[in-house]
């Protein structure tokens, strides 16, 4: 349908709906179709009949879209053979959707972040090549035959495992979201970035396969009474270290994962082994995992003391803030996008909670005055992204769109002013505020802007 939409007067053409040179019906022809198909069809049939009589049945005549009336190259030639791309790649027409850095956010790309293009993603699974990246000292492609996992500390026997060992053990596969604790961190004060890729793109969701860490610790015999903390350590240059409370591991949810979306982890995501800590911020999902130590106190590592501490208004730093509270965002339409015309749209977005399942998502198209409950698409899984959709008819007037998620604990996603009232605006971390997108009037271009409204 959009192909037949009229371009409103005064709107710039570039980058938006464009009348392709030979592929569309003319304005008059569209009018003819819209006015009632009879005369249009009649003339087309008459022309066809005349041609058939003339013995030229395949020749085209009368109005119609050239894409339909004229044979296209892909329909009239031999296609590519199998395995011409032994490892499949997206269509060349999909190059716009890629991981991107936010200019000026960091000064060194090896200690930086590349955001996932949430604005163009569907469902709940992040394609492995679009999974967000955050490295503290660059990424490595570790030889899996030379990778080892050591388990030490308060265990009866300190052990070393190869990947052969770990992949022999009973495995589980689970779908979970991973979100950086600093996701949306640029927006604690004011709006800073234009699109959902940069506001929320330190977020991904994948099916992870691996061994439950509790099974390994059980098999080794760990000190259940005193060994209440685990240090996870990476094998890269940053030697990333984070403390995981044993309570989380004992829930059975924490995995020593080697698989992601049916294949091995990508190097950027910790190949060949990473920790999966569902519900907890991404920094704890230690990549290139080389060591697990059971201990009796938290470790106050660099990323638990200098970074990933949430600053309160009185300057106090909240340490070990880990759990990602319930959050949601509309991905379509979202910042930096332009609506093609008024009429029907499917508002679509993502909701998630580090404390369990998403119970409900409400959507407002009047800046939070009134709300309608969206459809949650299945599956709705604990500590996984959940896709929501809701019908919406745009009348072309300016509106502010918002989504608000609620999780199974009854927690309702807060507004930014509610967050600021408690935590100030300098925390950087754990901004799970309701996101507002302002759609400009159709006459002003219909562009969606990132705003704060509460």
């Amino acid at each position, binding site marked *: 349908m*959009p192909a037949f939409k009229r371009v409103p007067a005064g709107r710039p053409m*570039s*980058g*938006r709906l464009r009348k392709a040179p030979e592929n569309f019906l003319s304005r008059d022809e569209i009018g003819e179709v819209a006015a009632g198909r009879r005369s249009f069809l009649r003339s087309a049939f008459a022309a066809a009949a005349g041609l058939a009589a003339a013995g030229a049945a395949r020749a085209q005549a009368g109005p119609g879209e050239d894409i339909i009336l004229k044979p296209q190259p892909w329909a009239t030639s031999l296609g590519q053979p199998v395995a011409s791309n032994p490892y499949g790649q997206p269509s060349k*027409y*999909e190059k716009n*959707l890629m991981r*991107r850095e936010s*200019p000026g956010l960091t*000064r060194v*790309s090896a*200690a930086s972040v590349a955001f996932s293009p949430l*604005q163009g993603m569907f469902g709940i699974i992040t394609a492995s090549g679009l999974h967000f990246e955050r490295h503290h*000292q660059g990424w490595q492609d570790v030889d899996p035959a030379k990778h080892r996992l*050591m388990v030490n500390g308060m265990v009866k*026997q300190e052990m*070393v*495992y190869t990947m052969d060992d770990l992949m022999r*053990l009973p495995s589980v596969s689970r779908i979970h979201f991973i979100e950086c604790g600093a996701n949306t961190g640029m927006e604690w004060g004011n709006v*800073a*970035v*234009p*699109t959902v890729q940069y506001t929320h793109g330190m977020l991904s969701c994948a099916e992870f396969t691996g061994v439950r860490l509790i099974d390994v610790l059980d*098999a*080794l*015999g760990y000190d259940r009474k005193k060994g209440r903390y685990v240090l996870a*350590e990476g094998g890269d*240059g940053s030697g990333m270290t984070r403390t995981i409370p044993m309570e989380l591991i004992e829930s059975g949810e924490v995995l020593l994962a080697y698989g992601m979306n049916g294949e091995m982890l990508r190097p950027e995501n910790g190949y060949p082994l990473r920790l999966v800590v569902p*519900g907890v911020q991404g920094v704890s999902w230690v990549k290139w995992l080389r060591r697990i130590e059971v*201990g009796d*106190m*938290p470790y*106050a*590592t*660099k990323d638990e*003391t*200098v970074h990933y*501490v949430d*600053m*309160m208004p009185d*300057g106090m*730093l*909240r340490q070990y*803030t880990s759990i990602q509270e319930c959050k949601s965002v509309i991905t*379509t*339409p979202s910042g930096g996008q*332009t*609506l*093609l015309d008024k009429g029907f749209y499917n508002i679509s977005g993502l909701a998630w909670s580090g*404390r369990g399942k998403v119970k409900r998502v409400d959507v407002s198209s009047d*800046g939070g*005055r*009134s*709300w309608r409950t969206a459809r949650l698409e299945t599956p709705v899984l604990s500590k996984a992204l959940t896709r929501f959709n809701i019908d919406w008819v745009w009348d072309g007037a300016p509106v502010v769109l918002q989504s608000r998620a609620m999780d199974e604990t009854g*927690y309702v996603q807060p507004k930014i002013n*509610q967050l600021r*009232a*408690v*935590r100030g605006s300098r925390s950087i971390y754990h901004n799970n505020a309701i996101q507002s997108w302002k759609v400009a009037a159709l006459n002003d271009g219909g562009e969606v802007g990132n*705003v704060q409204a509460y």
Partner: protein
Amino acid sequence: MSRLTDMLALCGACAAFACAPAQAAGAAKAQASVVARESPTEGRWQGIGRPATAAEVQAWDIDVRPDFKGLPKGAGSVARGQEIWESKCASCHGVFGESTQVFTSIIGGTTPEDIKRGRVASLTKSSEVRTTIMKVSQLSTLWDYINRAMPWNAPRSLSTEEVYAVTGYILNLADVVPADFTLSDANIGEVQKKLPNRNGVTLDHGMWQVSGKADVRNTACMKDCPTEAKVASSLPVSARPAHGNLADQNRTIGPVRGAVTLAQATQAAPAAAPAAAGMADLANKGACLSCHQIERKVVGPAFQEIAAKYKGDAKASATLAAKIKSGGQGVWGAVPMPPAPNLNDEEIGKLARWILDGAPR
């Protein structure tokens, strides 16, 4: 012990086989079955994993906890620390740890009063840069991190003495210890008691334990909900093009299009010639793009700045290739460029010529 040594030797053999081509895999498997590994576990998974040796645990168990468990014995003087700092750390962090050029400053923002109180007053000021010394509450954190991850391009290259020395020098820059101080495992506990922000952290929040309670709550109001009915903040017009042309960051089909935020739309830019595209990949492979961009200075000069500087210099190609290969410092500033070991000579030569051509896309 000898049995263990044998076992390790066999494991080493297995590892070597595992790296060999596929036809060796069968042999590796046979070899593996020869290694009778008695599981010391609770008997659940026979034959999986092996005991860690004392030397292995010592090699990898390098963490230092807040109670200084794990801290190796040793000492290092502030004076020695300054030497190491100036040769290995200052290029990124500044001579006084004050630089924000590459990373956030380490030093600055603390006062003698903070040291007395154990809370850094400037953390309450919104304008202040938050330096490491303003935030860090545990001395173990500094020691552990320098030991495990510094210097940036050569982690774990410092000796224990050097780590003590550098840690001591940072503390001296922050006026926590005097210039004639020697930090050691014996006195580090006392120095901890002078750390400016030692009392500045709290666990009083609900985001650590699973059972924790949320501190901010909203209600699920559905109708006539209270709002301020205004847009409190929106993206400044000047920031609109800062993330590039958004039209190029959205799909070209579907219900929406990306907004055109840069004057030169995609159509204007000619498609990258395959050769040029390959060069950008090469620059990426050499990890050049961490510090250099084509048009804009980042840590190092823009490729186009380099091209402009050496325009017409016949020897430039060879000079530049040598710099890429071995690293360099001083031509464009104090920040050193590390060598590019991921590139071979042919690739380096191509890269140098491409940069001198102005790095065409």
